[in-house]
């Protein structure tokens, strides 16, 4: 349990959590990604086969598409449901403060001074693509 390497960490994540991470990785970029690229992108060393299995599951659910025009074996996220969700979300957010009040958002806004503090924190320490040192 304690003292696990990145490998161990990946193994302990559930299938559902890994699906989320693969999906998030595909949405985070403009280009379609191959399983090998996703494997490199996801922090914590997943086995190639695992990535493949997860992609198949996401494909079966209609959440990702095979990129037919581009490179063979590359995947990109399916956008229909995501666009509908965005429309519904903006409509709800515009409707007024009530529905937003109870949302637990990841972060809220900043003052200019705070912004500078945060830039200093991130300054020059941008993470390498693969993550984990």
């Amino acid at each position: 349990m304690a003292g696990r390497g990145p490998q161990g960490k990946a193994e302990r994540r559930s299938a559902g959590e890994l699906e989320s991470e693969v999906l998030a990785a595909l949405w985070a970029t403009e280009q379609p990604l191959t399983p090998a690229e996703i494997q490199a992108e996801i922090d914590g060393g997943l086995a190639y086969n695992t990535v493949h299995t997860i992609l198949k599951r996401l494909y079966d659910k209609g959440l990702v598409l095979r990129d037919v025009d581009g490179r063979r074996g590359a995947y990109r996220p399916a956008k229909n449901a995501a666009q509908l969700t965005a429309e519904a979300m903006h409509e709800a957010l515009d409707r007024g403060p009530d529905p937003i009040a109870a949302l637990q958002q990841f972060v809220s806004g900043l003052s200019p001074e705070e912004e500078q503090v945060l830039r200093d924190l991130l300054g020059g320490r941008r993470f390498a693509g693969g993550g984990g040192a």
Partner: protein
Amino acid sequence: MRIDVYLPLLLSLLLAALSPVVGRRVAPALAARVLAVSAVFTAAATVWSLFLLAITLVNQAPPVVARAHNDGRRLPEPVPEAIALAAVLALVLVAVRVHRTARAERVTRRTLRTLCAGHPPDTELVVAESPVPQAFTIPAGGGAPGRILVTSAMLRALEPAERRVLLAHERAHLAHRHAFLSAAVALAVAADPLLTPVRTTVTFLVERWADEHAADAVGDRSATARALARAALTTGAPGPSCALNFTDRAVTRRIAALQAGPPPHLWPLAATTLALGALPALGVLDATGDLLSMLEYVPV
């Protein structure tokens, strides 16, 4: 009625004053739970004591007085009529506020659930293709499991390790039922507005709790701090929708806390807070005894 009927009001003020201290000193998971439980108890006791004060109006009704007199017994100390009337008014106000808060919570839940339309039910992550960076949870309910909604803009802004932090943070909200905790505190504050500062503290603590959970899951406190910084900078940048920027230095405080190392549990302070939450309940129990002895003389 003796002084103890007013105890919950006094202790509400004390709990409100103590809550920021607890929030700063005690580990967030413990502090949030303790404050939430204390707030709910205190609010319930406050409402009950208002009820006790209000019902003393019955006490002054001539038939009650006559009956007690015939028995040769003394009624519990009377409450000035003005206070009893004020209590009735306060009770009406409380009822309206609680009703409004409960309705707002229901509307929010329902609205959130509609955002999942078109997404397969067994997927945790719901992506919204939007240029506005946003991330929040959709709590379980109505037979549906809890979900995490993140916009594509937010996902694009973050580095891979930071995306894991974000997902772990939101997962912690779902796993520990933070929406339920927040709703309970919101209702408590609706019933007892003196507790408003407790809600502010719990809202902050719930985020801290999820941050600590994420730092644990990813095994890297500084990556967690960077994820918060990057997400905040992305959200704070001038964009199409700036309506959500209510800030109380929350993000910078959360980052500072992550950089400072895991917070201690400090059970004594937590236990004191809980005791403070239980005290008003004891006070009104005693006052309830007075009410029961008074009701003996109400003609049925």
